[in-house]
């Protein structure tokens, strides 16, 4: 075979030789195509797998890790109502499973923002409901280059449009997420979508095929030529100048997906489904080989039975297509008609395309002629590469920061206003008001606070016989990553991402429970880039162990580079937390005049890596703020206990922009109830800009009734969390003083104007 053929499919010479060795012959075109997608970085995790093993798989909540998603089990939410009486076997499996995962769709979104983002959302939803769970929430972590460039603006608008187009129609609320702008994302935006679903534990399904003679069925949309090479050509290489990659992007159809959700959950409920898998990246190849490998079985498939929407499709095209809204299911022999009926009722294709064998081979036929025959495990066990890594030389210089060389601002009010208008800090209502964040009627804390909060329905069918949604528990969810930290110090930056995610959950009254990670990096074949990856994974692993929470699912996206730049390392952390009593949640805005404002944690003189340095001094320098995980946990536990005891009126963590921005957000984030504050007890001897805008970690601002102060102080004392009363709420002005002078005096209206209006202005100008 000519090298041009396998090179064009993304394989190298060594890999081609390996394939010949495995097959003991030369591959057919179809076989080569199948190897090329399964062994792509996107599907095979060739370069990352070694390091991903470091991530903890167990934690304080019982975990459940499936082929395509993972989650946690809450046993004390049993027994649950189901549509059918549980048989004895299933009774031992009662308990509510919360299944969640985050996945990237970066390159497709860079090429075609609307469809790229839309199919990212569609894909992650399918990973959740193919586990048997009803999707109940979506979050999106987005990153773009500066909005001053027209193409970035186009990408931003397109991605938001794609998310609203898909998520709103499919009926899953988009409840949270984050948006950052940094020039490292020019030429390679990031779109990470996270989905959360719930299921009764006994109704979960795995992505496996087993039981000789059971049927393999294809359900959902028909197959076309869209998305061929999406995972191997598009996702597993960096962008080069002048390339046309639009045909590798798939087209999303949320209407079909909505029907697919209902039909699939109904079909799973019959008990006749052995296994199910989404045909996402690598389509039919991925489903056949991975389901057979996971079930230790084989599969015999006839391509003529595959529903298609284009003529004369070749076997390799059918095997590589990434047409959306399709799934492969393994059905108990003799039950095919019952399953078919359900899908047909929803207007979807359902056709038997093969059966399970026990020979370990994936056999693909076209008109009965064998076009591919490969051991399933050979396809799924992609080679593991041990990549060299090296600390980038530029860090030595960049990590140095002399505070004395940074000019102190004359007017802190102007700095605060400028920071509130900075694209990464400013209010994101322009975005989240385009997303339906209320459908399914579980959203208790709406977007715009530290974390989204949902009440937890007792069943995936909504309510329960006992009235209401059936449980008084809730979940909180957040996504977090400060990629500037990860650029300047990958290990600590990743740890901070975990700590901050947990902090956000705690501020809403939730106990951090488990993590999904979406690891976005540059070209892993560059040692400096791989060093960033390795250090971030180690950081996540160590932080999760400290919090005793597991990483239950995730995704790696390499090659996020373009001729303009490589992205900052961006290990996005998606975290969910459990709220024991949904009536005791908390949000960030001050609730009433005359409340006492408390700061938990220390302010240190830290300016490195801050938003302040970037926005005001145009500097990306210094080291990340310190992170002491013991202090972090003391602060978080104090807040949790105080919220659960009902002592707290508002809680907000200090992140980008430091104490001053956090205080401003407490004052203005509820438009119809803005409350000022007088912060007059900040006794720190340090530069005023570091005090106001430095980003010291492990700090949370609380407000509470007068009577609660001593109770909270006692909790903090017991848990060894630094505690300080710093001021009082009231009035229509935010005023901040240090021990010498008044630093900030700004009417809330001015703060609100900068904070609420600037994103819309930047997009529409």
């Amino acid at each position, binding site marked *: 075979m000519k090298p041009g053929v396998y090179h064009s499919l993304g394989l190298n010479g060594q890999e081609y030789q390996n394939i010949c060795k495995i097959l003991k012959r030369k591959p057919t075109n179809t076989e080569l195509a199948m190897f090329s997608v399964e062994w792509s970085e996107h599907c095979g995790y060739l370069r990352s797998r070694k390091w991903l093993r470091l991530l903890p798989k167990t934690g304080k909540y019982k975990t459940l890790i499936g082929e395509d998603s993972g989650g946690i089990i809450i046993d004390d939410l049993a027994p649950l109502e189901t549509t059918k009486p549980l048989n004895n076997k299933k009774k031992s499996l009662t308990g509510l499973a919360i299944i969640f995962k985050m996945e990237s769709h970066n390159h497709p979104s860079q090429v075609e923002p609307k469809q790229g983002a839309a199919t990212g959302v569609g894909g992650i939803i399918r990973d959740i409901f193919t586990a048997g769970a009803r999707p109940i929430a979506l979050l999106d972590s987005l990153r773009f280059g500066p909005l001053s460039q027209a193409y970035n603006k186009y990408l931003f608008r397109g991605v938001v449009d794609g998310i*609203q187009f898909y998520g709103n129609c499919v009926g899953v609320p988009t409840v949270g997420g984050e948006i950052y702008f940094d020039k490292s994302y020019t030429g390679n935006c990031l779109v990470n979508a996270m989905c959360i679903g719930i299921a009764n534990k006994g109704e979960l399904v795995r992505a496996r095929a087993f039981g000789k003679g059971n049927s393999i069925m294809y359900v959902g949309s028909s197959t076309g030529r869209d998305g061929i090479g999406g995972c191997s050509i598009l996702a597993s290489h960096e962008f080069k100048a002048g390339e046309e990659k639009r045909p590798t992007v798939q087209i999303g*159809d949320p*209407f079909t997906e909505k029907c697919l959700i209902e039909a699939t959950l109904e079909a799973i409920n019959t008990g006749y489904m052995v296994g199910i898998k989404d045909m996402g990246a690598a389509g039919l190849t991925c489903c056949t080989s991975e389901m057979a490998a996971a079930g230790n079985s084989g599969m015999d498939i006839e391509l003529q039975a595959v529903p298609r929407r284009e003529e004369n499709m070749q076997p390799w095209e059918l095997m590589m297509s990434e047409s959306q809204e399709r799934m492969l299911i393994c059905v108990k022999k003799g039950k095919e008609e019952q399953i078919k009926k359900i899908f047909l009722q929803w207007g979807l294709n359902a056709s038997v395309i093969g059966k399970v064998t026990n020979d370990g081979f994936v056999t693909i036929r076209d008109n009965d002629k064998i076009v591919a025959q490969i051991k399933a495990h050979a396809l799924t066990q992609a080679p593991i590469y041990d990549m060299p890594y090296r600390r980038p030389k530029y860090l030595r210089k960049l990590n140095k920061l002399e505070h004395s060389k940074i000019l102190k601002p004359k007017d802190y009010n102007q700095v605060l206003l400028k920071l509130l208008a900075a694209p990464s800090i400013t209010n994101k209502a322009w975005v989240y008001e385009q997303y339906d964040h209320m*459908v*399914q009627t579980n*959203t208790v804390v709406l977007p715009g606070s530290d974390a989204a909060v949902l009440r937890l329905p007792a069943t995936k069918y909504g309510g329960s016989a006992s009235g209401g949604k059936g449980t008084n528990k809730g979940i909180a969810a957040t996504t977090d990553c400060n990629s500037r930290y990860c650029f300047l110090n990958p290990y600590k930056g990743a740890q901070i991402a975990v700590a901050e995610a947990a902090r956000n959950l705690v501020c809403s009254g939730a106990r951090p429970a488990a993590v999904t990670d979406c690891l976005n990096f540059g070209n892993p074949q560059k040692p400096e880039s791989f060093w960033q990856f390795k250090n971030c994974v180690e950081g996540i692993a160590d932080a999760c162990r400290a919090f005793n929470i597991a990483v239950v699912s995730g995704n790696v996206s390499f090659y996020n580079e373009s001729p303009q730049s490589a992205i900052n390392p961006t290990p996005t952390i998606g975290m969910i937390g459990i709220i024991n009593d949904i009536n005791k949640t908390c949000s960030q805005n001050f609730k009433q005049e005359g409340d006492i404002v408390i700061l938990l944690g220390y302010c240190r003189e830290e300016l490195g890596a801050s938003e302040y340095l970037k926005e005001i001094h145009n500097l990306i320098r210094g080291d990340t703020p310190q992170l002491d995980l013991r202090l972090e946990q003391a602060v978080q536990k104090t807040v949790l206990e105080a919220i659960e005891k009902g002592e707290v009126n508002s809680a907000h963590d200090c992140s980008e922009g430091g104490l001053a921005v956090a205080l401003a957000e407490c004052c203005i984030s509820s438009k119809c109830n803005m409350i000022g504050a007088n912060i007059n007890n900040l006794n720190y001897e340090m530069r005023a800009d570091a005090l106001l805008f430095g980003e010291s970690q492990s700090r949370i601002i609380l407000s509470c009734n007068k009577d609660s102060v001593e109770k909270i102080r006692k909790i903090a004392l017991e848990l060894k969390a630094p505690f300080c009363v710093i001021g009082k709420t009231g009035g229509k002005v935010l005023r901040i003083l240090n021990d010498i002078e008044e630093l900030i005096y700004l009417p809330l209206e001015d703060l609100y104007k900068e904070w609420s209006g600037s994103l819309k202005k930047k997009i529409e100008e």
Partner: protein
Amino acid sequence: MKFGIVVFPGSNCDQDCFYVIKDVLKQSVKYIWHKETRLDGLDCVILPGGFSYGDYLRTGAIARFSPVMKFITDFARKGGAVLGICNGFQILLEAGLLPGVMLKNRNLHFICRYVYIKTENNQTRFTGLYNRGQILKIPIAHNEGNYYIDATGLKELKNNNQIVFRYCSATGEISDQFNPNGALDNIAGIINKKGNVLGMMPHPERSSEKELGSEDGYFIFKSIITWLKTKRKW
């Protein structure tokens, strides 16, 4: 009372309506598949929100051809109570059960947020428990809520007191500033002349429980139940 919730492929608020009727209001309720041809024994039919058939064409334009729509039209003609919420309202317009059309929101975006609406007409079976002029805090979530009707039609709506809800401020001021989508005359909901078919863009099923931030929508459903219990004439 027996409620029926119509399920078109692509409806996505059907389960939310079902839940509110069954678990919050404790009434009997069933789903009506879009291909069904019998509406026996129902007191009220709800067309829920969502994206029927994906709404890739004009919203509601395909749903109105669903087999069930013929029977809903008959049901309405006989005086049965029909409530269309969001996409349900759009379908009622397309089906000709209510006058007027929906245009794209004037900012050309989907809008999801709480708004305030004023109860302009409380003499209906859907609004009997509100005071006249009562202001409700209730969420909207739509792409096409920019209601339009020609001048004659608008005059007729006004003359017959068919405008039930209008967008307003928290204190009840009605002006363009408090009009989220550009709807003509701030119209958020209208009723037919006979008074048995209501269409509204805001979602009462999303504001029927304290935990969710507003209970103002609850009284739409409660009004229907109260009316059916006391005043039903058919």
